[in-house]
């Protein structure tokens, strides 16, 4: 930028001295208008062509401001997806992790919804029996920094609209979900965990025989 100022001003002086052309005057006006925002120092400094005096250059400072908007999603093919099956889970219990990778350039939130509020089988249970088996859902979020976020809620508290897990029930939004306050770009280590201890049939209610299922929907949102 700096080398342009002297030739422009010399051109303007030359044009004025020679009576000037309309086109040259217009160009000078445009150049002047463009040069005004460049700073008061430029307006007070005369820059000479080499051999006509000094200085021969002026320093211009231009502040360039920019930002990148919040980008937030799961890394490609790294969303928390998959399936898990445990035979006779009432006897064995279970623990299973579903890893995922965040790709968020700023803070984000992760939320979960359980379709059944537990592992459920068809039918109606008589008194003392149950067709719904409880289990816990945990979230562990990692970031580009040492900041992590952890929370656990029972699946029964993750039913859309009615669950009581205020921490991460529902669809993720800027204000809903477990929040990680730092960017997390392609960091491995985040996971969703489902877990249940062996079911205490002595305490009950007794789980009836059958096939049980639940679906968890995990959503992610930027949380500026």
């Amino acid at each position: 930028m700096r080398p342009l100022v002297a030739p422009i001003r010399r051109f303007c002086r030359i044009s004025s001295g020679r009576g000037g052309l309309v086109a040259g005057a217009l160009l000078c006006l445009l150049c002047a208008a463009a040069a005004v925002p460049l700073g008061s120092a430029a307006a007070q400094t005369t820059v000479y062509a080499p051999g006509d005096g000094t200085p021969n250059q002026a320093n211009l400072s231009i502040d360039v401001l920019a930002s990148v908007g919040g980008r937030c999603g799961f890394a490609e093919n790294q969303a928390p997806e998959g399936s898990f099956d445990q035979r006779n889970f009432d006897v064995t219990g279970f623990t299973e992790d579903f890893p995922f990778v965040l790709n968020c350039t700023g803070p984000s939130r992760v939320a979960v919804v359980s379709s059944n509020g537990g592992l459920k089988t068809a039918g109606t249970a008589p008194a003392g029996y149950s067709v719904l088996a409880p289990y816990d859902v945990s979230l562990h979020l990692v970031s580009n920094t040492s900041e992590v976020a952890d929370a656990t809620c029972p699946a029964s508290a993750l039913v859309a609209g009615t669950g009581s897990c205020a921490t991460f029930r529902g669809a993720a939004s800027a204000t809903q979900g477990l929040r990680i306050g730092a960017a997390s770009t392609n960091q491995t280590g985040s996971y969703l965990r489902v877990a249940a201890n062996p079911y205490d049939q002595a305490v009950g209610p007794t789980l009836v025989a059958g096939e049980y299922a639940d679906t968890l929907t995990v959503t992610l949102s930027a949380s500026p």
Partner: protein
Amino acid sequence: MNKILLIALATAPALVMTTPAAAQSVSGVVDITGSVGEKCIVTDDGTPTSGDFGGSVNLGQLDDVDGTLKSSGDLEAAFLAAGTANLTYRIVCTTPNTKLTVNANELTTGATVSAGYANTVHYNASVQLALVGGNQSLSNDSLLVPGGAEQTFTARLATGPTNVAVTANNFRTPGADDVMLAGTYNGNILITIAPAS
């Protein structure tokens, strides 16, 4: 001029992008499945000496003052005196139906029997199940060999404090007036509860 314009063009979009991007939402789906197998679970086993549940009953002295077997009523009372700790249990099954077998084995002693004497006491054992919808029972007499046949009850076991109870009656010797031989008498009642689809 060109450079100045270039700067202006470069700055303009940068200023536009300073507006925060709208929050995006993406999702993943996790499916969890599992099974609960068909089984029965003993949750109150009584005081078993073997097996999964059970208890012990000591009838005491079997013979009456004349050497014959005490009355069945006396022995029934003695049996019940063993109490709930030995004679009642709690079992739950995950299946909608319940299978039960009862096999009563007579009380015997090792002494050699001769005419007019007895080394065996027969009796009838009954197992009462508390089922959803009401109680049902199944009996077996020790005189029957082999033991009682399996029966399926089309109801779940109720989940009250206890839901299986054992009683015994009709104590008797092979001959009505048999004199009891001296000795220690042992017998047992075998109960099997199984899940049924």
